[in-house]
């Protein structure tokens, strides 16, 4: 964690697309009259989605006005939650888990890959394709180490497979989310160690 500030370069203005306005109305309608401010997080999230993955200052004001909130209240929310990006991100935004299980399983190696292929943490690569950030646990420890790229998890990475994913993304090729080794989901890495027989479980099993 570090101090989070609004980006020095901000767009002139921000407005939801007509489609998003409709969607926002639906979100606001979920809350009782007078409590519309409760819709702040989904609206900011949608604004971030619409605005290439980061939340500009005019969007914070726009959402605050939409919800009849003080600007400062919306800014509090936007700066509190680290999933709101206050500065531009790359087209493929890599969130790299550096928490203990991933770190033990080689997250440092993945960071090196990021530095080499993307650049310093928190900056957008020259071609605008990538940016990366170390984040806290993303909850896929069983497949450590892992990264999240935009909405997808890429798991069981090592330097080589991670480089391959990044290169494929840069080349515009399709990539397969999930474990990048032969493993299926979070099953044991060397194949099943139990439940190896299909059909009925053995009867009379003790402990």
């Amino acid at each position: 964690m570090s101090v989070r500030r609004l980006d020095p370069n901000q767009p002139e203005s921000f407005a939801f697309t007509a489609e998003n306005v409709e969607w926002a109305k639906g979100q606001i309608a979920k809350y009782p009259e007078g409590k519309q401010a409760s819709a702040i997080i989904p609206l900011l999230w949608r604004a971030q989605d619409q605005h290439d993955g980061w939340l500009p200052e005019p969007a914070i004001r726009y959402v605050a006005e939409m919800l009849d909130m003080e600007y400062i209240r919306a800014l509090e929310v936007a700066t509190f939650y680290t999933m709101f990006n206050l500065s531009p991100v790359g087209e493929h935004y890599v969130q790299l888990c550096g928490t203990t299980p991933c770190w033990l399983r080689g997250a440092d190696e993945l960071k090196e890959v990021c530095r080499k292929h993307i650049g310093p943490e928190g900056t957008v690569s020259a071609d605008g394709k990538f940016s990366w950030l170390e984040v806290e646990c993303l909850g896929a420890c069983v497949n450590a180490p892992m990264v999240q790229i935009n909405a997808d998890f890429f798991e069981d990475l090592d330097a080589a497979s991670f480089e391959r994913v990044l290169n494929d993304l840069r080349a515009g090729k399709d990539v397969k989310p999930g474990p990048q080794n032969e493993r299926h989901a979070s099953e044991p890495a060397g194949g099943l160690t139990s439940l190896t027989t299909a059909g009925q479980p053995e009867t009379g099993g003790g402990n």
Partner: protein
Amino acid sequence: MPKLTVDGIEVEVENGATLLQACEEAGAEIPRFCYHERLSIAGNCRMCLVEVEKSPKPVASCAMPAGDGMVVHTKTEQVKRAREGVMEFLLINHPLDCPICDQGGECDLQDQSMAYGVDGSRFHENKRAVEEKYMGPLVKTVMTRCIHCTRCIRFSQEVAGVPELGAIGRGEDMEITTYLEHALTSELSANVVDLCPVGALTFRPFAYTARPWELKKTESIDVMDAVGSSIRVDARGSEVMRILPRLNEEVNEEWISDKTRFVWDGLKTQRLDTPYIRENGRLRAATWDEAFAAIAARLKDMDGKRIAAIAGDLACAESMKALKDLYASLGSPNIDCRQDGAKLAAGNRGGYIFNSTIAGIEDADAILLVGTNPRIEAPIINARILKRARAGGLRVGVIGPRADLTYDYDYLGAGPQSLKDLGAFADVLKNAERPMIVVGQGALARGDGAAVLAAALSLAKSAGAVSGDWNGFNVLHTAASRVGGLDLGLVPGEGGHDVAGILEGASNGEIDFVHLLGADEIDMSRLGSAFVVYQGTHGDAGAHRADVILPGAAYTEKNATWINTEGRVQLGRRAVFPPGQAREDWTILRALSGVLGKTLPYNDLAGIRAAMEEDAPHFAMTDVVAPADEMPSLSEGNLDAAPFESPVKDFYMTNPVARASAVMAECAAGRAAAARIQAAE
């Protein structure tokens, strides 16, 4: 009513009271940073930890409701250790600024660290540093000192009603700021400095000027508006260094407006410190004897009808009493204390005071504001209305200027016609148990003011606002002197002229002599060729026009009486002496009376106060509101169609002291610039 035991003492507290309140009830002192009686509970500083039997961990007493049968310990080793732990964490990032910090000497953190601080730190990493935040000309920030108690945020939301402070970021990186660092816009903004338990928010105009322990504290009364907030004037030598609020539940609780607080630099500039006489068109410094002789020469054998006197907005009751007696003895019927021309009659106080009282606002369930914007005319009263509104179940209606009052209201119309046609709000008033009608000077200082007052009073009566135990008819004044002046009868006598008449008379030559007692808010160009005596404190409009200037004492420089809009008699006390040759105002008038051969029959403060009590017995009862006996019956008249306007055009510039203040000028300029930007958008 839970009963509990605190340190072996059994106490019974109100339902819903917190453990902290119960501990205080039992006489135990609980340290705290975030907790404040008048704000919502945050429970984030953890300093108020106490031990509760059967609870596995220490309990934050501010956020824990007192329960029946609880056994609380506040002085055990565990409590001490827990608080020391909290303090150690708070001090991790707190800089060792005390020697250069303006909060030094009155800092909660400093005080409490004497009891719970440890002598060294186990923290070897770098301390956090936080960028300063701009909050306008009044509040200076040193944000590295902030301990995240959030009192300022809660104040701006809950008391000031302008939620513009917030906490951005999180955890250690949390920072208090306004949106994109705009200046605070509330009229009560500087109260956040009083609330700040550390030196993160301090008074910008007071920065590095004095230490609290070298100041002489004088408890006094504010005169910037008609609320009469209780203040403490801190002075060093002959200088007022700052003004702070004083607790007064009946009036200002513990808040004061920014104007009340920061007007002090106006007390040092533009002061009249010696008498002046105009000779050959130019003012020259003179002695008191010369000044009095010039007045006496002018008044010699003058017909009383050609003499007039006007009392200004800051005049104390003593000086008005002397003014009235002096000019009555000269046979002048032309005297007035309503320089804005408000159509209020003397006598029958019920017709011109704030009968419900300020604390009574909390009992009201419907309020109709007529021709007033209390936010700028009396911010303290507006804060009370907001407090009542936040408690729920209050309906507010507004006739007059449409402004942001910080609470929701029904807008009923712009002018007096709406008094006759309230629409749905008529039922609100009728069904309310304790309705209030507040009539501002914007509704009274106009041609049809008397008719508006009559219409408002008859509305109050018909809505049941005036009954045995509840008087909901209120006049909100803007001038500190006004109620006192009306109580003393400073209104035109038989055949006399009011302010408008005096100006008219002066410009067409019927009036030759005008005495202005601190009256600066009249149109000086209409005084024609009259001989003008200006008695006051500042070189403002009146002094520029004057033929003789008599330097008086400002409100911090005299022992004097003011009556606030409620009719509460309050005593101001002298904090410093008037500058140079200036004297207390009633003594000037007493001396002048001797020169004129009409010596006034009182020689000391006790004497003039006894004379005031003869005029109005309630002058003997300080700090209480003497209820009005009965309401006047006023005759209705024709109502104009013109919309009401608030008499306060610029909150920061309402009187000579404020106009002389550089801080107030900066505030006014900032506000004007913000308004221009808003208009441009």
